């Protein structure tokens, strides 16, 4: 009985007794969720366009962050480093398509999946080889992202919102929204979905 109480009732009693903590937790959960959505967006983009589940998506995000921070550490100005990082990731993606995925076109999905699996280990190794294994600090300030936090008085307590979390949530929401419009409403978006669905039908209509 006590166990059931602990599982099903107790949490709600606690929530009721500390509403400020509840709001704080909800907010942090929301921010974490939005950031995961941003990474998931990468999965979706690639899956919709190619039908490939790109296991290397996560490590590619890490690799881009490492590149950005690494370039900055070598004295490249922050925004130039950002531009170069975008360029580097673009080239990396092209190289992956050309040398890893294209030779496997029309193979069963699981084979492509395994290829991205292998890619993950290559990128982990490459990242460590190039940038070293020690922890890095993100250059958020230098990219003019806001720092500090708002503290809101609420329910007799305080709720703290990091400004950078707010910025992240806004940017991520915008990206999700524009991707949705891109896939639903543009010719290229439609073409990408079409190719993922049926390769030969797409060929027959000239995509």
């Amino acid at each position, binding site marked *: 009985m006590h166990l059931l109480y602990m599982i099903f009732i107790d949490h709600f009693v606690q929530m009721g007794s500390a509403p400020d903590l509840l709001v704080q937790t909800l907010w942090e959960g929301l921010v974490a969720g939005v950031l995961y959505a941003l990474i998931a967006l990468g999965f979706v983009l690639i899956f919709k366009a190619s039908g490939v589940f790109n296991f290397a998506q996560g490590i590619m995000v890490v690799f881009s962050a490492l590149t950005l921070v690494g370039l900055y550490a070598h004295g490249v100005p922050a925004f130039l480093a950002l531009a170069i990082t975008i360029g580097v990731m673009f080239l990396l993606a092209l190289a992956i398509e050309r040398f890893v995925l294209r030779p496997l076109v029309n193979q069963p999905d699981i084979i492509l999946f395994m290829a991205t699996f292998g890619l993950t280990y290559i990128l982990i190794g490459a990242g460590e080889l190039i940038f070293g294994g020690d922890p890095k600090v993100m250059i958020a300030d230098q990219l003019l992202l806001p720092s500090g936090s708002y503290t809101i008085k609420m329910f007799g307590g305080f709720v703290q919102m990091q400004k950078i979390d707010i910025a992240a949530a806004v940017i991520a929401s915008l990206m999700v929204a524009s991707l949705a419009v891109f896939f639903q409403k543009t010719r290229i978006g*439609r073409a990408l979905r079409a190719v993922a669905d049926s390769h030969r039908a797409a060929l027959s209509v000239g995509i």
Partner: protein
Amino acid sequence: MRAPSGPEVAVGDVLLSVENVSLSFGGVNAVSDVSFDIRKGEIRAIIGPNGAGKTSMLNIINGFYQPQQGRITFKGETRAKMRPHDAAYGGIARTFQNVALFRGMTALDNIMAGRSLKMHRNFFWQLLRVGPAMTEEVEHRRRVEEIIDFLKIQEIRRTPVGRLPYGLQKRVELGRALAMEPDLLLLDEPMAGMNLEEKEDMSRFVLDVNDHYGTTIALIEHDMGVVMDLSDRVVVLDHGLKIADGTPDDIKGNQGVIDAYLGVAH
């Protein structure tokens, strides 16, 4: 024979000609030294028993396969090699024996995809949905709605095609091909697996496309009743060889064709 008619198409000129085309896969001769032509505005049937090389022939015409020998002339241009993209760009559209639709997309989006080659604004403007990009999208959408009306599939335009019954999927696939406004439409067994009523509907659509848009059609079909009713001329393949070519009446009486279908008494 039904007289082919079309508003502005000069009937009778050769639209596509296939000369001495051969294609083999390893040791299997799918198509051997086949020649025939398709004239503007006509409905041309390609028939033959299973494994006769009919689908291979369509795949050669729309660039999926490259023949090892022979020449293909389309709209006066002879080509040694053509990719599917060139075929689509040149005005050849097709449907598939086992429906090949974009299953996750709605009927509307499937048909819109058929207009990909005709849309030119870059995606940035399409994303913003302003100015010329918007005008273009609206214009294409209007054309697509015409096709949807024509094929009487208004009520399923928002349904993902994977959920539609087979007969309707075939109709959407025809719609996607029509959206390309093709000069030559290749239909690979448009009535396969349909019941009588669906076959009659599809036959009417094929005739209407031919009449209304003046589209030249090459179709593969097993239902002899349909073939004889629809087509202006018929070419018969068997084991990759052409064994007959002529009007439906010629073909009906052709001993070689009867033998190919029924077997020869020994």
